[in-house]
């Protein structure tokens, strides 16, 4: 029966951590049962390279050293793999315990609990219910977008990517070549900020609009990565939250609570209607139409025309 991969990886890790001198591939092959059973040199080599990569993903620093005979040896030196001393009190431990549970994405959930386990092994206090004092709080980071994981890795490793992207109002997706900088989750949706190579400019992409696979491109980033990447400001602009003008509307009394909540001024007209001054940003016309006969736009004329236009389209239906 084939030996389980976890057992093989564990043996390789322990060998590399336990040795004081670099071990050659030959030595490793002879001392790990799974490698003895690997069959041909080719299949052993492939397996060994993959395993080394997997251990590096787990954070193991594996040095490659050439000995006097020109033979390559490997070791995971204690000094470069040891966690620096870290002391956390019970409250801090509880706070991290809560944080480690918020990921709903398998890879990051696994990584977060892995981090906590390493800290536990290093003496992180236990037996504290992370929900003790807080009882009821359940923050969750949703990740429903398939593009998330490949983009997260591409951001981490600074690898250019290509993907098909369908703009909000476009029927067909178009290929985009992007140097990915950072991912941000806002209001439950994930966004990518990066350098759009074809447009030669910074762009923000919504992950749910990426269709098909995210593919890595070879080579390095061509454009400099800014120190601060601002995804949220861009998205807030799309959502019309960066209003720089104001509009005057009439609103039926008792209707449109969210409009009232945003209003900068409210005047009761006494005839069943109120007059409101509200911030006028992108998308306000579509929002106002939702209130149907309970809203009448007075100013500016441009907003009034947009709303009338939309209403006429629905009325014709």
């Amino acid at each position, binding site marked *: 029966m084939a030996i389980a991969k976890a*057992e093989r990886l*564990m*043996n390789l890790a*322990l*060998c590399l*951590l336990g*040795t004081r001198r670099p071990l050659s591939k030959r*030595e*490793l092959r002879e*001392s*790990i049962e799974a490698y003895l059973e690997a069959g041909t040199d080719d299949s052993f080599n492939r397996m060994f390279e993959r395993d080394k990569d997997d251990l590096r993903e787990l954070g193991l620093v594996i040095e490659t050293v050439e000995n006097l005979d020109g033979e390559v040896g490997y070791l995971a030196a204690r000094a470069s*793999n040891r*966690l*620096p*001393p*870290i002391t956390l009190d019970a409250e801090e431990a509880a*706070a*991290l315990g809560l*944080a480690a549970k*918020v*990921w*709903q994405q398998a890879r*990051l*959930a*696994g*990584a977060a609990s892995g*981090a906590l386990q*390493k800290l536990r*092994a290093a*003496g992180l206090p*236990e037996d504290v219910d992370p*929900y003790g004092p*807080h*009882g*009821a709080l359940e*923050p*969750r*980071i949703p990740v429903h977008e398939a593009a998330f994981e490949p983009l997260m890795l591409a*951001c*981490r490793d600074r690898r250019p990517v290509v993907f098909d992207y369908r703009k909000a109002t476009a*029927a067909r997706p178009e290929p985009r070549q992007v140097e990915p900088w*950072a991912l*941000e*989750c806002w*209001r*439950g949706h994930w966004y990518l900020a990066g350098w759009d190579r074809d447009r030669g400019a910074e762009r923000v992409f919504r992950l749910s609009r990426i269709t098909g696979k995210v593919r890595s491109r070879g080579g390095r980033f061509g454009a400099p990565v800014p120190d601060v990447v601002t995804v949220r400001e861009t998205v807030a602009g799309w959502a019309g939250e960066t209003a720089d003008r104001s509009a005057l509307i*009439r609103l039926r009394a008792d209707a*449109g*609570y*969210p409009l009232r909540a945003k209003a900068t001024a409210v005047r009761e007209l006494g005839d069943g209607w109120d007059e409101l001054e509200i911030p006028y940003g992108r998308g306000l016309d579509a929002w106002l*139409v939702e*209130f*149907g006969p309970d809203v009448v736009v007075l100013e500016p004329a441009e907003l009034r025309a947009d709303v*009338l236009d*939309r*209403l*006429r389209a*629905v*009325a014709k*239906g």
Partner: protein
Amino acid sequence: MAGKPVRPVNAIDQTRRMLSLVTYLRERPGARVEDVARAFGISEDELVSDLDVLPMCGTSFRGGDLLDIDTDGERIWWHNPDDVAEPLRLAADEATALLVAARAVATLPGLRESDRQALLRATAKVETAAGEAAGASARLSVTFEAEGGVFADVDRAISERRRLWIRYYSPARDELTEREIDPIRLVSVGHTYVEAWCRRSEARRTFRLDRVAEIRILDEPSAPPEVELRDLSEGLVQPAAEDPEVVVEVGPGGRWVAEYYPHDSADELPDGGLRITLRTPDPASLRRLALRLGRDGRIVSPPELADSARHAARDALAAYDGVEAHRAHEVRGG
């Protein structure tokens, strides 16, 4: 803690866990299976399967140096502890996962100040210990949205087990309703919600905190009936199979509907639009959507919904005519 934590099942996660396990066991001879499983956030079965693998693993390339770890099902013993088992540094993904989550939780408005301070201290310590591995964590960030004051009141009501009175806005009906609720838990999925037993509808309801217009903590004790907590990882809106069906056809400009509304199907149309089929307990609530779509889409069925949107638009246009006349009158009069 309800909801299903995501369980690492693959070889990578198991290896990661076993490496920490040997370090942990070295410091705690005779550790109890129950305690170790809890410390590692895994089931006892998962722990026992790790303990089956460890005796097959060796610390030396010369062989014969296998880990002599065994268990009687209650306690765990390592008979030849080895100094190979030192705490390991954090990997880049591990540091990122923990730090990004910690920073996100710290942004939750209404989080107790003492908890926030503990989290910030812990974050700083982990950053230092992670060293270079912490670098990539700046490339990922999460902001939770919540209304600070409302959040604090709900949180307090839950811990003091008290009933709440709220004025709540329902966009579907564009109305504010008053209700008394017995809060069960707070959930943050993008927006923050309180799941509660609603005394008015005698049912479990989820309320979005940014739609709570007013809130008061009542003196009555909260007494929600025992309800099984739902797994919310698939989203808060989970239409039932018996809910009526609504069919919407949108042009390219209305494709966003498929992103915002959970739906059963979205079929491509030749003009680049979509035919979307969704279910909702209250189709009338979609009148807003029909109005919003304008020329970017139309309701195919039910016909009553399409009619109600058409009528609303006609009424609205009539209201404009009224205001037009009124203003003209004002101007003449002035």
